[in-house]
């Protein structure tokens, strides 16, 4: 774990009216094990709550979980609000069951990329993969552009 950019702060939460908590809990645990600091907001978190927490903790990334299928109604405007709040370049990752029903993954991904989400993950993605991406993005300074 010494290789991590230890101390990077990650804000986590489940967006909207969504109550599914298990996935994000597991992710938080894995982030902690990998040497990240985590600010867990729990479930039913609004865009504003995410952004306020990110400002307050000077976070490097926001991990947004959405399982109920309503992400297409809940995510638009997120990036814009970050820009307004002066954290234009914060990493935003999104994961879970993003639409209602079965999803054609390529379409889903491009839909949310266009909304300024840096990385979009399908259900069941392993925390290991997410953490690898996160390390890479943080150290390369990759931000959404």
């Amino acid at each position, binding site marked *: 774990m010494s290789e991590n950019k230890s101390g990077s702060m990650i804000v986590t939460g489940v967006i909207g009216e969504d109550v599914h908590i298990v996935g994000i809990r*597991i992710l938080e*645990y894995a982030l902690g094990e990998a040497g990240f600091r985590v600010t867990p907001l729990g479930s039913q978190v609004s865009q504003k709550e995410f952004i306020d927490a990110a400002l307050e903790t000077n976070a490097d990334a926001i991990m947004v979980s959405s399982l*109920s299928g309503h992400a297409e*109604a809940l995510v638009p405007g997120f990036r814009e609000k970050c820009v307004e709040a002066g954290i234009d370049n914060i990493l935003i990752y999104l994961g879970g069951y993003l639409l209602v*029903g*079965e999803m054609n993954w390529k379409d889903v991904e491009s839909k949310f990329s266009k909304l300024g989400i840096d990385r979009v993950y399908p259900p069941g993605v392993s925390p290991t993969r997410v953490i690898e991406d996160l390390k890479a993005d943080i150290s390369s300074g990759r931000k959404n552009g």
Partner: protein
Amino acid sequence: MDKLNRKLTEEEFFKERKEVLSGWPTGQDVDLDEAIAYHKSLPPGKVWAKKMQYAKEHGEIYAITGMGVATIEGQIELLQCIEREGQADLLGTSVDSYSRQSDYEAAEKGIKDSKDKGRSVLNGLPVVNHGVKGFRKIMDAVNLPISMRYGAADTRLIDEIGYAGGHTSGPADALMDFWHHHSKVSLEKVLNTHRYGKRLIGYYEEHGVPMLASCQGLYGAGIPPTLQVAAIIVQLFTLAEQGVKNMRLHFATHGDLVQDATTSRVLTKLADEYLKIHGYKDINIYLSVSFSLVQYPLEPGTAFAVSFMNTLMAKVCNAQSNDIRTIAEAKGIPKKEDTAYTFRTVKAMENFLQGQKIEMNQNDLDLECKMAELEVRAIVDKVLEFGDGDAVSGILKAVETGVLDNPFATNSASPCKVMGIKDSRGAIRYLNHGNLPFTNEILDYQTSKINDRENKKKKKLDYEDLVSDLMAVSKGFLVE
């Protein structure tokens, strides 16, 4: 201290009712007298409680799962497909998650968007928005009983409209709704609004309409069964007090047949005993099981194997209701064809097993039952002690102090100290019992079971194993 678990008077009920019905325009269309007359006109085949009674008398098992899309037309198409192609015995209405948060504006927008896009953008049927009239169309279009399936901090308006619309069953489960269906609401508020819902069911019962109420306490994946049994039993007092007469007790099985059979036996015995001791009589109890997972299998073969386990468990647990997930559970809201396919398959399974007798090793079962009873009694008695006999105040204090707890609660007011883990045979044991009031005898038994697995794995069990347990069945294993 006032007794909190007390039946709402008719006056209180109707006063509260006014306010409830004003929550959304469709509330005005609910006419209780008309609804009671409507229910009395339903054929027995459309009434959940009657189907459960038949199943219990004849040893039958009936599958059920959630079903819900945004529009009435869509819902009819879905349910008809499940009834005809799926050979289903029971139907359900999943309520969408905006409605569960009482956000009927968002639900309304969801209906509109769904019509525009020609696909449901809601994850369930917004019962309130469609109103009594909307649901009656569904009732006319199918021949089976329909149950509401949802959880909410405030269930009152959905219940009013849902039951008046023709549902003959629905949830009555404050703990489940507090723990799993809202992140911030207080338990006090949930218990309060839920009292109303139960009183509503009681009102139908008083007027000769059998209405089935479901209770499961908490979402059971990875959760030790005795915790779930305790969370169900303490709530039964609150159902019975408001006049609920037909109860569907739902619990999660986890794959160790001995433990699962034990859960069923202990729940049946203690529910009956505690209700009687507290003076609640003439209550019909039905059992319902899930083979409960957190993550469901993506691979359809493994998903079928899961429905088979669910059915086997229903058999082993003498359950009437076989609460399954479709084989597409891990993919998203299932297509109607997937649901029908799952039902059809499970129906054949049920047919094959129904007439059979399956038993467990008597010694194993006796020991497991003895220990499980101790665990449940320890929790339930403590809750009642907290409330000085009053279940509601007992529950309030118990949840606050973690005498009733939940490892994966969504609500931030829950201590979440308890942690379950599988033993080497797949039974869930207490890796951490948090503040549960357990004796050393209980704890030693738990430890010995955990040690078995630790010895096999040659390591201490930790969070990694917990995660692996949560995922195991989805990969086609019971314990890894």
